[in-house]
């Protein structure tokens, strides 16, 4: 559904991406691995149109994404859970969920507040609270719920477990697993190889703005040493 080939982009004069290749098929869970600063977040921001591409192609279900505004890309069915959560702090949890909610692809069973709170019971207890008062983990859950409420075909999670307590991480991984079970296509940026090995279908490693390795879980086991070097853990 998503095909990225030879993607390049830059912040001002400093080029960050030099040649990113990756693809995700419907129902797949795919990871983007790499150390800090190699261009994982930039890749996602470029796919979303938040950073201007300098070259290459991004194709989503046959539609070219480069040159489209971020809202146009999101409307095609990509839901972003940005790095650092970025909820709307002065809105309540409920408002965060419904403000941008939509079912543009006309799903038969769209996401609802009830479904999101079933997935994240903690959010259900805090619907009237302003999002700024939530803990980091709860904000992360809210950011995921907010993206789900747009009923995306592809969910992109950028460092969804970064800086969270282990017990909260486990809860988020469990939810991602549930989503996978429901057939949700997901692109994950994370460093937790152990969990990702079990959860994801395929993996891409990035270094210095280029895709340098890709493979399945079995390939990951075989090239474990190499990939560990790319990820730096």
């Amino acid at each position, binding site marked *: 559904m998503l095909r990225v080939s030879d993607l390049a982009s830059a912040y001002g004069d400093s080029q960050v991406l030099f040649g990113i290749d990756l693809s995700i098929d419907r129902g797949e869970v795919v990871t983007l691995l790499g150390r800090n600063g190699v261009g994982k977040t930039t890749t996602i921001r470029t796919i979303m149109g938040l950073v201007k591409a300098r070259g290459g192609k991004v194709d989503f279900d046959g539609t070219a994404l480069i040159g489209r505004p971020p*809202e146009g890309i999101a409307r095609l069915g990509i839901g972003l859970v940005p790095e650092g959560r970025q909820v709307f702090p002065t809105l309540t949890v409920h*408002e965060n969920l419904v*403000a941008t909610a939509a079912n543009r692809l006309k799903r038969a069973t769209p996401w609802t507040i009830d479904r999101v709170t079933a997935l994240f019971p903690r959010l259900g207890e805090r619907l*009237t609270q302003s999002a700024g008062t939530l803990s980091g983990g709860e904000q992360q859950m809210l950011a995921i719920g907010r993206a789900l409420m*747009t009923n995306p075909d592809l969910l992109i999670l950028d460092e969804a477990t970064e800086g969270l307590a282990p017990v909260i991480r486990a809860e988020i991984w469990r939810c991602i697993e549930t989503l996978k079970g429901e057939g949700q296509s997901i692109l994950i940026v994370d460093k937790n190889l152990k969990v990702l090995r079990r959860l994801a279908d395929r993996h891409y490693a990035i270094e210095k703005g280029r895709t340098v390795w890709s493979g399945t879980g079995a390939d990951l086991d075989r090239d474990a040493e190499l990939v560990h070097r790319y990820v730096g853990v």
Partner: protein
Amino acid sequence: MHDPFKFSGKALIAIAILIAALVALPFIAKAVGLPATTPLATRLLIYAIAAGSLNLVLGFGGMVSFGHAAFYGVGGYTVGILFQHLRIGEPLFGFIPGTEQFLIAVPAAILVAGAFALLIGALALRTSGVQFIMITLAFAQMLFFLFVALKRYGGDDGLIIRRRNALFDLNMRDDMTFYFVVLIVTIGFYLLMWRIAASRFGMVLGAIRQNERRVAALGIAVYRYKLAAFTIAGMGAGLAGGLVANYARFVSPDMLHWTKSGELMVMVILGGAGTLLGPLFGAFALVTLETVLSGWTERWQLFLGPILLLIILYFRGGLSGLFKFIGGGGK
């Protein structure tokens, strides 16, 4: 389902007291022999509408529009020009007959101001930050000079409206009657603002204020939401302008001057930007301070400045923050 904008019991009582006080005001003014209070209160309410409309863009949407007086003035001139054409018995542009009907002239003021806001917003909202401030200011000044140059409608001297618009069989000349007309309109306006703030549109607007790109990345066409808010705000200012033209029976280019835009901004910030009733408090506070201070000294602005500074420095939510502080027993 809970309603995120449901008022707490305490807030509802406070609002009921506020409305009761506003209803009782002209009777009390008459009883204690201060009949001039009623027209002053009328002016306060009209400013509260103008500031409330600016609050939609400035407070809720985070767009610092520095040309809001333009729509206020356009609304006023719409009422004035329609009356002028009735008086001289010659249709405007050859086909729009003049009118002195409140129910035609004031809605016309709203629509014309809204049309200007749509046009100016469509261009200005392509920019943001300081550029947006300067562009809205520039458009407002252009309209200001347009009305200065329109000799036909009084130019610099403004346009006198011989009598207030007619509404049913009411005696609109009577200050108390006119006060109640304005009060009803004000209550209606604030009810509408409340519904807007509580709607999904209002939530998205709040989200846009916090981070535009984040909202765009969730599939919302930010520009359209901002333009809609800007246009509604322009319509609100047009309403206030149409009312003030009736109130003063006079319109002049001063209504569109940038200092008027600044005054409206001060009201919003003083009262608490992004709060529902903030602009109302802000308008009351500013006009009351002006009236009281200017009664004491000619250099009243020297005293107004520090007072504004203190409120803005120490109460981040403006007067609304102050009231909440008092109401909550301080925290």
